[in-house]
């Protein structure tokens, strides 16, 4: 097993081993002993994870949060919330008055800047900190809350709240609730939500989310919300460098590789146009859409070519796969 020494510089996954064999960089007898080490190390973490699933610690949740690209201010605030909750619990244990501050939140940011992802992590964090019993995420929007006739809205909203009890109720595009003016049933939904957020303070975390501009207007139109939703997180748009890093991560997750020219051109494209895009563009979802488009184009490119394909061919996304995207 002397090959273990070369693991640092050698292939990092079974897929890479196969690629090395094909490229003539590794003999099968070396490969097979690497497989053994991979499958063994693969087998041990799930066992650990299963134990942890019963009791995930706050540190583990925060580690997942820190793995997200960018979002530095958000990470800092979440860190602070965690400290606050822990200190309050310790104070309570020592018989001191603990602050009954509610932890409901407002997330404002463009779509695709990580609001839902962070909300899900928030649920897990509060479960780990024993603030919420279940920590699951219920994601709703206006249509899930607002009814069609008098009385229907309160009923619908209460049902949603019931589903979310023990976890996080994430209201996406929350400003839409106030869209219809005074006579709209959306107002009723807001009132029911606010009441629930007060009544089930220990069992429910309500997060109102939406575009920054619309959320600012929404809050100014409903001044009562500000005091009940004291934590505000502003999700910044990703920088071009962040977006390239996200692209690299997404590509790796899907077992593809960016060719060097694809990576440099992608960076150039993302930074050159940063200010010109409409406000939905500067986000991770756009990068994902570009990648998925490139993956389809790569498939078309490969099938058009009547040559044998290597693993390398199958994995590599070239710049030509991307560049069609913005030509039209």
């Amino acid at each position, binding site marked *: 097993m002397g090959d273990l020494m070369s693991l640092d510089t050698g292939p990092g996954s079974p897929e890479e081993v196969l690629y090395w064999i094909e490229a003539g960089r590794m003999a099968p*007898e070396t490969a097979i002993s690497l497989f*053994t080490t991979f499958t063994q190390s693969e087998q041990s973490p799930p066992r650990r994870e299963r134990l942890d699933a019963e009791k995930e610690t706050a540190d583990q949740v925060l580690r997942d949060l820190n793995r997200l690209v960018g979002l530095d201010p958000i990470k800092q605030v979440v860190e602070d919330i965690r400290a606050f909750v822990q200190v309050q619990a310790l104070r309570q244990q020592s018989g001191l008055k603990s602050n009954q501050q509610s932890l409901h939140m407002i997330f404002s940011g463009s779509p695709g800047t990580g609001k839902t992802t962070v909300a899900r992590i928030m649920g897990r964090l509060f479960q780990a900190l024993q603030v919420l019993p279940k920590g699951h995420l219920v994601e709703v929007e206006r249509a899930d809350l607002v009814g069609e006739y008098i009385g229907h809205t309160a009923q619908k909203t209460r049902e949603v709240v019931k589903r979310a009890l023990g976890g996080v109720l994430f209201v996406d595009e929350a400003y839409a609730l106030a869209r219809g003016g005074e006579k709209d049933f959306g107002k009723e939904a807001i009132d029911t939500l606010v009441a629930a957020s007060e009544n089930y303070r220990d069992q429910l975390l309500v997060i109102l989310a939406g575009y920054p501009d619309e959320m600012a207007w929404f809050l100014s139109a409903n001044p009562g919300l500000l005091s009940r939703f004291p934590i505000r997180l502003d999700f910044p748009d990703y920088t071009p460098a962040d977006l390239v890093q996200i692209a690299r991560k997404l590509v790796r997750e899907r077992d593809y590789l960016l060719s060097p020219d694809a990576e440099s051109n992608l960076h150039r494209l993302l930074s050159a146009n940063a200010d010109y895009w409409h406000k939905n563009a500067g986000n991770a979802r756009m990068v994902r859409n570009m990648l998925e488009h490139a993956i389809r184009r790569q498939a078309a490119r490969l099938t058009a070519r009547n040559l044998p394909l290597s693993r390398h061919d199958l994995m590599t996304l070239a710049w030509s796969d991307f560049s069609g995207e913005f030509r039209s």
Partner: protein
Amino acid sequence: MNLLIIGRPNVGKTLLMINLVAYLGLREIRIDVQDDDGVRRSQRLGLERARRQLVSLEASKTIRIQAVAVDVAAGHQHARVMVLDTPGISLGISPSLDQRRQTALTLEYLLSARMIFHVMDASAVPSHRDQGPEGFDAGLMEFGRHKPGYLLVANKMDRPGSHEGLRILKDNYRDVTIIPVSSATRRGFRDLKVWILRAIP
């Protein structure tokens, strides 16, 4: 469900496949070979013809992965098993891209196959004792130890020296299931069938 037949060259993988699917009830085999460019060639062969055409005594005959589908049934159990016969794995880095590609593909199947027949020539084991722990067979046994669907098939039990070879294998790998067979005389095929039926969920 894939059953992967893997091993060094000339240990009798292809004949094992043909005689096994015959034992499981096929009168005629439809063999699928996939070319590099993704074209799948299909060939229908009678058993005798398959043996003559696909098996050779001295050279490595199989150069592409070939597959035969067979329905395995006993009592209430029933399953379609894809038997994959692979080119022999030769040691070292092959100069031929085609061969390296087939090796990579074989090992890719190894990672996902539900059933693995690791075939060894039992009669050759005594004379190859110097293979050492670095060898492919030793590495594959080490890999298979952790897999529930792994079976070591000690082939060519009709040959002289095979019994000593089997004893050496059993001594070295006590926790690995070994079934001694002979593809030529069909000794041990019943055990193989029972093993397959037990491996089917």
